[in-house]
């Protein structure tokens, strides 16, 4: 059996990689252990969140599927940090897990040039340092490009107290054979850990004693293509742990696998289990618990904040101390899961395994965590596998272009010691990398790549033409009388007439306030709000751009792939070893490696000049 490309795994990374490959014209095979696990949301029933929402928008802007798929399954949508600036506002949508899975499965099945195969990938075919295909259930499948997106399934085991099972998430089977094959091929594997809370029956919860959390009704959805706002939404509920919950956890801590040595994998600090929170922050009197729907009008609820690997009897006892959960019945118990993944320092910025040509990887296999952190490198690995097949140079996004660039650069340059989560704090050009301008940053690139179809492209052009017209209209002068009237409404005073843009610079003036001063055709509140962001950030954006200009010059200097760092005596030993291992693509990437000093960078510059003479 012969394909152009094979994607191993059909989770959030695998589906984006496979769709990108097929859409870019490659005959593609996607292999999954179980069709029911395609785009399965193994943990929280939501998409987005701070920083993550940006990733979804970026994947969408490039022509990916996650945003559209999330929009089609939304139960609630919310803009986080609504009271803060545009750059740190992120979308988070509660989704119907079943609909999310079904939609994506349908998309895969209806995609031209894409074949879905159920089976277990057992081995990689590698010849002379280049990938040749995979073995699925004993049968050979040939391809010149392979993308590994094995998620948390690789030699995974789930742990609930004393109960340890060789299994994948949610009771799915794990991938038992591939790990040893990868180790044999020399891939540096290691073990990470993550976990999930219990799923409980919706009718066993007393919502009346909890705080109701509603979504936002006046905001756009994830995809730039989704025009409708979400008018019918489901609520979430907020409740808290208490002293009794904490007492039960403390008394049973010797039965917690995290504390008694059963679990060896490295867990994420930003996704702590409830026992971790209670032990590490002993002085906190309570912790938040959000009750979120798994499906629309369904029978199951997700108990966010109560992830645990304590034994079942302890889980029942502690969950039932929480207000509103006194009589709760368990459908699935919380568990921790350990799995094999790769040290991402073995990858190039194109997400290609440096040691094996044509082998790419994405998702939790690369040491990240989260659906969005999987989808983003998923589409990038798909794009780059396709470019490799067509003999084109890699497509790498810079840190000043996209959160995707930050995510991948962090992983392949700095590595990670725990499952990596996106945070806005990681993006040094945060004011420019907003979710509202993701299309402006990336859709033209997606168009050039061939992933943005005509419909998306036309919609992009129309939207941005209007946005630009609004920006120009911000130059319109408004006479003092009108300015003063508006300011007076806000309890402020105006003494001179000014342009719309100048008015917008005042913190108390919103885009909505100035709509009447714009030509009638341009009175679009959403677009005006977006256009106003650049005006409001003004000087701060300029500051950020000054840093970008400097950094970009370093990024534009390529380092030859065949540099013999170990022989460069002027480099300090640590720098030689790190550079040899990571093999940065640019001077900029080299400068971000921990252990490479400014003096080492100067030595590299010297070398580059020598090489050019």
């Amino acid at each position, binding site marked *: 059996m012969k394909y152009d490309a094979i994607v191993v795994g059909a989770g959030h990374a695998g589906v984006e990689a496979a769709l990108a490959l097929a859409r870019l014209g490659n005959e593609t095979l996607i292999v999954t252990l179980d069709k029911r696990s395609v785009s399965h949301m193994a943990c929280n029933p939501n998409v987005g969140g701070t920083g993550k929402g940006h990733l979804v928008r970026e994947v969408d802007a490039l022509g990916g599927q996650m945003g559209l798929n999330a929009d089609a399954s939304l139960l609630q949508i919310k803009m986080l940090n609504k009271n803060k600036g545009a750059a740190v506002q992120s979308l988070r949508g509660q989704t119907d897990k079943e609909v999310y899975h079904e939609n994506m499965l349908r998309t895969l099945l209806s995609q031209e040039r894409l074949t879905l195969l159920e089976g277990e990938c057992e081995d990689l075919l590698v010849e002379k340092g280049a990938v040749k295909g995979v073995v699925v259930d004993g049968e050979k499948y040939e391809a010149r490009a392979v993308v590994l997106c094995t998620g948390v399934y690789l030699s995974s085991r789930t742990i609930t107290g004393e109960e340890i099972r060789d299994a994948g998430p949610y009771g799915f089977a794990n991938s038992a054979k591939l790990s040893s094959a990868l180790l044999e091929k020399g891939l540096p594997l290691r073990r990470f850990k993550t976990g999930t809370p219990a799923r409980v029956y919706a009718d066993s919860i007393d919502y009346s004693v909890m705080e109701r959390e509603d979504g936002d009704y006046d905001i756009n959805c994830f995809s730039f293509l989704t025009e409708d706002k979400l008018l019918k939404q489901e609520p979430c509920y907020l409740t808290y742990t208490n002293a009794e919950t904490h007492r039960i956890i403390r008394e049973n801590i010797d039965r917690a696998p995290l504390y008694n040595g059963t679990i060896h994998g490295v867990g994420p600090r930003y996704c702590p289990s409830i026992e971790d929170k209670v032990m590490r922050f002993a002085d906190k009197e309570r912790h938040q618990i959000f009750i979120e729907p798994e499906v629309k009008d369904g029978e199951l609820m997700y108990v966010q904040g109560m992830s645990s690997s304590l034994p079942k009897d302890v889980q029942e006892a502690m969950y039932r101390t929480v207000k509103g959960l006194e009589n709760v019945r368990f459908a699935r118990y919380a568990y921790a899961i350990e799995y094999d993944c790769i040290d991402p320092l073995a990858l190039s910025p194109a997400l290609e395994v440096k040691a094996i040509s044509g082998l790419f990887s994405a998702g939790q296999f690369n040491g990240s965590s989260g659906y969005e952190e999987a989808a983003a490198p998923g589409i990038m690995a798909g794009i780059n596998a396709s470019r490799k097949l067509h003999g084109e140079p890699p497509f790498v996004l810079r840190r000043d272009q996209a959160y995707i660039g930050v995510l991948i650069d962090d992983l392949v340059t700095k590595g990670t010691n725990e499952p990596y989560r996106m945070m806005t704090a990681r993006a040094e050009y945060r004011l420019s990398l907003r979710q509202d301008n993701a299309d402006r940053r990336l859709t033209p690139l997606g168009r050039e790549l061939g992933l943005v179809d005509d419909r998306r492209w036309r919609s992009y052009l129309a939207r941005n033409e209007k946005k630009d017209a609004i920006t120009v209209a911000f130059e319109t002068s408004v006479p003092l009388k009108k300015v003063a009237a508006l300011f007076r409404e806000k309890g402020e005073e105006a003494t001179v007439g000014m342009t719309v843009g100048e008015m917008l610079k005042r913190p108390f003036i919103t885009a909505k306030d100035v709509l009447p001063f714009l030509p009638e055709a341009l009175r679009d509140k959403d677009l005006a709000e977006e256009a106003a962001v650049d005006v409001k950030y003004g000087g701060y954006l300029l500051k950020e751009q000054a840093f970008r200009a400097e950094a970009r010059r370093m990024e534009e200097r390529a380092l030859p792939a065949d540099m013999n760092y170990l022989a460069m005596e002027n480099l300090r030993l640590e720098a030689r070893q790190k550079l040899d291992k990571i093999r940065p693509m640019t001077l900029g990437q080299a400068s971000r490696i921990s252990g490479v000093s400014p003096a080492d960078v100067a030595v590299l*510059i*010297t070398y580059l000049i020598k090489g050019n003479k």
Partner: protein
Amino acid sequence: METIAAISTPLGAGAIGIVRLSGEQSLSIALRFFHCSGVEKEEDVTPNVLRLGSFVGGSIREKCMMVYFRAPKSYTGEDIVEFQLHGGAYLVERVLETLIGAGAKMAAPGEFTRRAFFNGKVTLDEAEGVAQMINAESEAELREAYSLMSGRFHARIDELISELTKVLSTLEASLDYPEEMAEETDDAIRRAEIVREKMQALLSSFRTGKLIKNGITVAIVGKTNVGKSSLLNSVLGFSRAIVTDVHGTTRDVIEQSMVHKGVKINFQDTAGLRTTRDLVENIGIERSLQAARGADIVLYVMESNGDLDETEYSEIRGFSKRVILVNNKIDVYGNASSGVNVSAKTGEGVEVLLDEIVRATLGEKRAADSLTEERHADCLRRALKSLDEALSSCGSAASECVLVDFRESINALYEIGGGNATESIINDVFSRFCVGK
């Protein structure tokens, strides 16, 4: 590209000192201080022509030459302005300080060459020079005397970084975890204000910066009629203090400054120490001791054949960090076995004494050391400037904007010793706050 400035000749040596600006703003910054007939605005300056004029700004009013190289025909490929000044560390550093005050950024080690490289301008030799120059910093740190001082300095920088990290991690956590951080109240801004105070204190105590800026204060003390006032007149080269044979001629502290090898020295001639019933003279003697207490260095003067008054000498050594024993009148009594031998009358030994004063206070400094420290001071100044901006906009700007300035502040601190702000901030978020699902 920001406009950068640096001294491009070795400090303190040579007859000419060159201060160089590179970047778009070079000429406009330069013309704020350079005055010359026929030059009013930027268009009046012909590239590649050396002009004589004067540099007026800060405490400086000096004749100097200025030359402008227009991009891309310059060393860095950007607009460059060079000032050629009379040599001497004091003057060139004041000029540099003035330019930085006007908006230029202190160039990082090798930054001119790095820019030249990026603009395709640099030769191999020059690039190798960059690596050496940057390495000089770590070499300098190996030297014992330096590392003691820099060790203390770095410890204080680390402290500032760790305090500021707490401020940033609180603000960042509330942006990335809006739901969980709602209950976390942390006085980030108050903390930041404390950091600012510490930063100001560190900057003002910056040893070389302060000594070069304010000069070294030297108190001349000793018994009456040992030639203290003559010594002052001798080092100054003109008669500043009244000199007579009468004991107790000098009654008050006489101050006069001079520059020796680029370093400013403020001399304080004091009333001679003796037991007297004269009320005015006793007040003068009290002032002598006060001057000795406040000075960076004390010259204890005696006649070269005199016997050392052990009690008085050890009293002075008790309250002054550095005391140099000076044996005067060697033209009459010959050399003594210990201390510095001078003759105020003939000038013999005075040069040696001045060298000793500079050496004892500033140490055996090389140009590289001074550049290193100037770079550290620049980082610190930038950190303070950004922190000020952050604090002043805290109330009005959104927190992600204020964080741009906070970040710039902590990044400037990280430039001193290297390291990564983002990683430490994120580590701090998770160690201090219970966030995450």
